């Protein structure tokens, strides 16, 4: 057991500064934004240190009570890597916010954005099933408020819908957790995971369904994703970017941490779960439905933001399909796709944000002839679109390829699922390429637009990283492979790192 308690600063420092930002805000509005930026920057550099000094797998013990008695954070390969990704995306969006958020209550917006990022990191880090609920609520409450922020009134309807669906979801999650507690008498993920076969199958299955439907709300899986299009379209673009680039990926991680580590059976060629029905198969079905519904709905959208929202939904479905295949290659593809999606989708939303701000607009027709108006944004948008489609030389290629290969490896009815997913990819290719074609091949003559410098920095960095991942997939690949090892072998990957004394039995 490797304990590195200073990693608690990943949560402690953002909290300290979130509480003190109102005081900084008394001095100046700009200072509040910079404090947020620097705090997220601290998180990014600290997680970079953990990742590259190879400090993981390690554990943080809270209040000196060792698990399973107290609460703990667990930093395995998945958590270390995802916290780094979340903090980096958060940092880049914070840079964008320096430029984008000028009106309204900037100070409180900064507080909420900071805690949104920290909460998402907390979801990834935590080793306690109830603590996961708390972090879900931290991320949730800040995202409801952030989604409702903005001068446009359409933000409010989306935020309200999100709030209602999400609160019902978290209630269901809490009830599932309580049901498990009645039988096992513990809330620690590692102990529950080790003893999950001691519960009765009916209760276990029902609790699993409750927990998974609660987490599926934020992971945007069908049928709990009715809020996605309205909320993403209504929110200001920086918030949409962070919802799809930060909140969604932490929620998907939590979903599969529960499904694979807590409910999963280890030892087979692929992960399946205890209980009367196989929860992984259930998730696979939901995810496939999500992919198909998302892509088909995206096809008919006239508004680029709404299209991106549906596409985001579909991508989350694809990620979930990758994870739910349950073999190592599938999880590898899922995590790779998670990172690609997070980078590309947040970049696309930021680009739309810049385009709206400089007066181009957010409808597909407004994108006509954009190449002549602003080559930089056109190029970066195309890079993002190509990565989404999985073109070779772009990040998305490797992940989509691994997911397809994994499902072929697994065989059985996954052949059918991957057929449907590939069909949906064709639909996706159609609507993304339509925009790209509009941008390049239209001869509409319109005045040029300038790119503001500040938001161009994050967009540029994200675009470069997509191309870099496409050419050198091992940047993400090494970590994804380690992460896949952790998620598919729950005993050696997770439980023994948290409660080593279980090994004696």
């Amino acid at each position, binding site marked *: 057991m490797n304990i590195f308690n200073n990693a608690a600063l990943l949560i402690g420092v953002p909290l300290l500064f979130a509480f003190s930002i109102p005081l900084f805000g008394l001095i100046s509005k700009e200072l509040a934004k910079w404090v947020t930026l620097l705090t997220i920057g601290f998180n990014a550099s600290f997680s970079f240190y953990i990742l590259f000094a190879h400090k993981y797998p390690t554990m943080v013990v809270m209040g*000196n009570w060792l698990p399973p*008695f107290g609460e703990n954070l667990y930093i395995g390969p998945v958590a270390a890597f995802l916290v780094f990704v979340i903090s980096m995306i958060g940092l880049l969006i914070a840079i964008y916010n320096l430029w984008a958020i000028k009106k309204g209550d900037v100070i409180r917006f900064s507080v909420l954005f900071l805690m949104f990022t920290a909460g998402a990191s907390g979801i990834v880090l935590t080793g306690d099933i109830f603590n996961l609920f708390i972090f879900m609520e931290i991320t949730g409450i800040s995202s409801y*408020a952030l989604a409702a922020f903005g001068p446009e009134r359409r933000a409010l309807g989306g935020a309200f819908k999100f709030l209602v669906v999400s609160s019902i979801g978290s209630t269901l999650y809490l009830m599932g957790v309580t049901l498990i507690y009645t039988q096992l008498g513990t809330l620690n993920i590692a102990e529950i995971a080790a003893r999950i076969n001691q519960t009765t199958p009916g209760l276990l299955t029902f609790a699993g369904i409750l927990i998974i439907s609660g987490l599926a709300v934020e992971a945007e899986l069908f049928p709990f994703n009715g809020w996605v299009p309205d909320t993403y379209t209504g929110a200001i673009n920086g918030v949409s970017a962070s919802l799809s680039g930060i909140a969604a990926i932490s929620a998907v991680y939590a979903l599969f941490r529960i499904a694979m580590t807590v409910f999963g059976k280890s030892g087979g060629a692929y992960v399946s779960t205890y209980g009367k029905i196989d929860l992984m198969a259930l998730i696979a079905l939901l995810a496939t439905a999500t992919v198909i519904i998302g892509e088909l709905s995206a096809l008919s959208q006239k508004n680029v933001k709404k299209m991106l929202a549906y596409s985001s939904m579909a991508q989350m479905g694809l990620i979930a399909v990758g994870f739910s295949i349950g073999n190592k290659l599938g999880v590898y593809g899922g995590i790779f796709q998670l990172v690609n999606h997070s980078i590309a989708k947040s970049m696309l939303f930021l680009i739309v944000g810049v385009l709206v701000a400089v007066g181009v607009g957010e409808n597909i027709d407004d994108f006509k002839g954009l190449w002549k108006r602003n080559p930089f944004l056109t190029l970066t948008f195309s890079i993002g679109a190509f990565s989404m489609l999985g073109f070779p030389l772009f990040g998305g290629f490797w992940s989509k390829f691994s997911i397809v290969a994994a499902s072929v490896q697994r065989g059985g009815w996954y052949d059918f699922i991957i057929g449907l997913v590939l069909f949906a990819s064709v639909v996706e290719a159609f609507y993304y390429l339509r925009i790209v074609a509009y941008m390049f091949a239209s001869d509409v003559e319109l005045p040029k637009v300038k790119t503001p410098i500040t938001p161009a920095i994050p967009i540029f960095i994200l675009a470069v990283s997509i191309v870099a991942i496409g050419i050198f997939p091992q940047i993400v690949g090494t970590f994804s492979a380690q992460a896949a090892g952790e998620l598919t072998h729950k005993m050696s990957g997770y439980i023994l790192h948290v409660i080593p004394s279980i090994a004696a039995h």
Partner: protein
Amino acid sequence: MRNDTPALVKRITALSLITILLIGFFLAFKEMPKGSAVNVNQRVSRLYVMKNVETATKMMENGKFFAKGIKPLRTDVPYTPITFGKSKNLEDGAANVVTSIVVDYRGFDTLGEVTVLFLAATGVAMLLFGKEKKRKNKTEPSLIMYVGTRISFAIIFLFGIYIFVHGHLTPGGGFPGGAVIASGILGLFLGKNGYKPNHLGLKVFESLSGMAFVIIGLTGLFSVHSFLANFLPTGVIGDLYSAGFIGLIYIAIGMKVGAELSAVVNSMIVDVEEEWS
């Protein structure tokens, strides 16, 4: 659901959904221990009640805690009897076991909980941000109301403070204490039209008490090498000055919750004109 779904269809769908959910719950309840079968001794709370987590930790490290089939032997953990007003230097000195769990054994949850409330208050204030309009109530509250709320505020305030200072001894604690203080401030709003609390003071108070919580946590990290660890002596169970840092944290929580909820009430009551400039 779709916009144009008729009300009847909507109701039937909702009813069937709820029925399925409730049937699932009752099937699950049948497998759940009920009534006298609920065995607290099999749960991790046994260790919290007996305040012997440290013993259990040692047993776990020696490999004596888990039996064959990974069943935890929680009932095997030895205990020393705890007498109210006599037992000294327990690992957690709070007489109220719920408090000891909320603040000490699972203090990290509570930090998160305070954050959730803080974020909710921040969100409310952010959405209702704008230039203040004058409140125009038709009727001014009577003099009795005015004087009465002012006098009762002092009593309510004291009662709130009592609740959170005694959080480790009696039922209550930071959250209800803060809520009581906020309801006192709500009374002040009702007592006088156009009542304005000191906004700057509230803000500073809220920030400082929140920071105090985190700083207590960080002190634990740098003195006992664990975030939110109890670094003060725990004293005699039942004394006012016992239970280590629980009192301090509950004071911080109480003040923070009071300030936050008052801020929520304030931003809800005051009419503002939105400005995007």
